[in-house]
C-alpha cells in the first residue's frame, strides 16, 4: 500500500503588498493589480508533507488546489519542490463559495484520492485569514484534526507526532492516521525548487492548458503521465450544486465599505526641538503621561 499525503494549496492575491491601485474607483478589489502567489502557509504545509515523504519509503505527495485555471501555476511550483502529482478543482459553479462550500468541494476531491494517510494544508490563506477551511474539510471527511502544526516530530505508517504552536506555548500531540493537519507559519520554510524537478515537471499541464497548447503533447503524456494535471469539475466530483457557490454558502456579503478614514482634527508638528518640547509639555501638563 502506498503512503499517500494530500496537500491542499491555494493561489492567493498577495495582500501583503497592496499598492495604491489595489482598489478600483467603484470600491471593488482590482485583482489584476495584485500578484498571485502560493499562499505562504501552504508552502510550510508542503514542506512538512515533503519531510513526511522523506521519512517513509514509497510515500507520495499529491497537491490539490481549488481555483481558476491559472492556479495550475502553484501546482507546478509544488512539483518543482518535490510534489509528485497534482489536481486542480476548477469550475465556474464554485465561484462565490464561502469556507463551508469550499470545504465541501475539497472534501469530495480528497475522497477521490482515498486511501490517503495525511491531509495537510496551511493554517489560513492570506486573502481571508479565516483558518476555517482546514477544520471544516476535516469535519466533512470525519478526520481528527491537528491545527497550528509547527514541527513534525515523528511519523510512521500508523501515527504522527506533531508539535503545535499555541498562543502562549506549545503542545505535542499524537494522532492515528488518517488525520488532517493545518500548518502554522512558524513551521520550517519550504525547500527551494530543485533544478532536476524543474526539468522533470516544466511541461506539466492541466487539461485546459493542453487544449491551448500548439504543440502535440499526446506522446509525451503517454510516456510521462505525471505531467498531466487533471482537472475536476462539479460533475467529476458528483457535487450537489445547491451546496456550492453562492447558493451553498450560508455567509453572504451584505455590504462592502471601501476604507475611508474618519478625519480627525490633527495637529501637525515637525521634528524640531521646539515642537517636540511643546508636545511633551502638553502631554505632561494634561496628565496623559507622567
Amino acid at each position, binding site marked *: 500500500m502506498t503512503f499517500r499525503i494530500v496537500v491542499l494549496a491555494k493561489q492567493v492575491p498577495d495582500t501583503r503588498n497592496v499598492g495604491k491601485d489595489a482598489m478600483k474607483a467603484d470600491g471593488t478589489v482590482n485583482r489584476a493589480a495584485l500578484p498571485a502567489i502560493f499562499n505562504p502557509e501552504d508552502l510550510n504545509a508542503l514542506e512538512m508533507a515533503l519531510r513526511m515523504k522523506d521519512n517513509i519509503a514509497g510515500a507520495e505527495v499529491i497537491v490539490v488546489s481549488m481555483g481558476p485555471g491559472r492556479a495550475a501555476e502553484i501546482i507546478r511550483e509544488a512539483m518543482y519542490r518535490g510534489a509528485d502529482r497534482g489536481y486542480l478543482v476548477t469550475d465556474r459553479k464554485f465561484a462565490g463559495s464561502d469556507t463551508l462550500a469550499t470545504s465541501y468541494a475539497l472534501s469530495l476531491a480528497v475522497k477521490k484520492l482515498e486511501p490517503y494517510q495525511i491531509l495537510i494544508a496551511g493554517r489560513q490563506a492570506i486573502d481571508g485569514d479565516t483558518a476555517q477551511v482546514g477544520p471544516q474539510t476535516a469535519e466533512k471527511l470525519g478526520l481528527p484534526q*491537528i491545527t497550528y502544526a509547527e514541527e513534525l516530530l515523528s511519523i510512521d505508517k500508523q501515527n504522527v507526532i506533531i508539535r503545535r504552536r499555541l498562543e502562549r506555548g506549545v503542545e505535542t500531540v499524537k494522532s492515528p492516521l488518517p488525520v488532517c493537519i493545518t500548518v502554522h507559519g512558524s513551521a520550517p520554510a519550504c525547500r527551494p525548487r530543485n533544478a532536476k524537478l524543474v526539468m522533470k515537471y516544466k511541461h506539466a499541464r492541466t487539461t485546459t492548458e493542453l487544449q491551448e497548447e500548439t504543440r502535440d503533447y499526446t506522446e509525451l503524456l503517454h510516456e510521462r503521465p505525471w505531467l498531466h494535471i487533471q482537472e475536476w469539475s462539479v460533475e467529476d466530483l458528483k457535487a450537489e450544486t445547491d451546496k456550492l457557490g453562492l447558493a451553498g454558502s450560508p455567509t453572504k456579503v451584505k455590504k462592502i465599505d471601501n476604507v475611508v478614514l474618519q478625519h480627525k482634527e490633527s495637529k501637525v508638528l515637525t521634528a524640531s526641538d521646539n515642537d517636540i518640547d511643546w508636545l511633551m509639555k502638553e502631554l505632561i501638563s494634561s496628565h*496623559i503621561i507622567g
Partner: protein
Amino acid sequence: MNNVFVYCEISEEGHVAEVSLELLSKGRKLAHELGVKLEAIAIGSKIQHVSQEIFPFGVDVLHIADDSRLSPYRTLPHASIVIGLFQEKQPEIVLFGATSIGRDLAPRVASALRCGLTADCTALEIGDHTEPKTGKEYKNLLYQIRPAFGGNIIATIINPDTRPQMATVREGVMKKEIFSPDYIGVVEKLDVNAYLKETDFVVEILERHIEPQKLNIKNAQIIVAGGYGVGTPENFKLLYELADVIGAQVGASRAAVDAGLADHERQIGQTGVTVRPKLYIACGISGAVQHRAGMDQSAQIISINKDPNAPINQIADYVIIGDVAEVLPKMIKYYKQNSK
C-alpha cells in the same frame, strides 16, 4: 426567536478566559436587543465554580460539561458536546473567542451544523436585510463586521437563512462589562456521555508547555508601537527606551513583526491584540485598516512618520512629520529633564 450562546473558554488557571467574559458582555446586549436569553457553555474538568464568574455578566442559563477527560482542550470531545447541545437548543447566535481554541473549534462546529461562521469580527450589530433579487425581507440578523482583503475593505457579513449565526472575536475587541453582580441564572449539568464517542479521544496530548501571560499590552495605559517604518532593530530599541521612561508597553504592527523587528505577542491589530490605551504613540506605522482596527479606540494618538500622507495621520491627534530615530531621543530627553 431562540437564544444567544457564548462558548466560554477555560484558561490554564481554571478561570473563564477574558475574551469569553468580553463576549458574554456583548452577548448580553445582543440578547437584550433581540428579546431573548443569554446562554453560556463551559467545558472542562472540575469547573463547577465558573458559574460565579459567569452569572454576573447576565447569563440566564449556563451549560456545564465537567469531566476529567475534557481538560486540557482537545478538538473532538469539545466539538461533539457543542454540536450535540446546539442541535438540541438551535441557538440564534453563537460567539467564540478567536483564540487558538475558538479558531480550532468553531469551524468544526459550523461544518457539522452547516451554518455560517465569520472569523475575527471587529463589530457585531443587529440589523435587517432585504434580499436584492427576491425582495425577501429578513428581520434582526446579526451583522458580522470585519476587515477583509488585506484590510482594504470592511465587509458586513450576514447569514440570512441558516442558524446559528456564528462569529469569532479576538480578545480586547469587545468591552468587558459586569451586567449585575447579583445576577443568578440556572446551571444545567450536561450528561457528557450522552454526547461523547470513544473515537473522540483518538488524539493524545503527550506534552504541554504553556507559559503564563508575560505581556499585558491590552491593559497598558500608554503604548509605544512600531511599524515597518522604524527600519532597524537599533531604532526599535528607542521605542523600548521611551516606553521604559514614560511607563508604557511596546507594541508593533504586523509588518514590523513580519520583518522580525518585534515578537508576535506584541502585535496590535486585527490578527493581534486590540488595545484602547489613553495614549498611543505610533512610530513609523503607516496604518493599514487591520492595524487601526486594533488601536483606533485609543483616547489620544500620536503619529510619528516621515510620510505626511500616511493613513494613520488621519486618525491621529498629533502628527509629527519626521524620522523616528530623530524624534524619539528628543522626547526621551525632554521627559527626563522635565518630569518629577
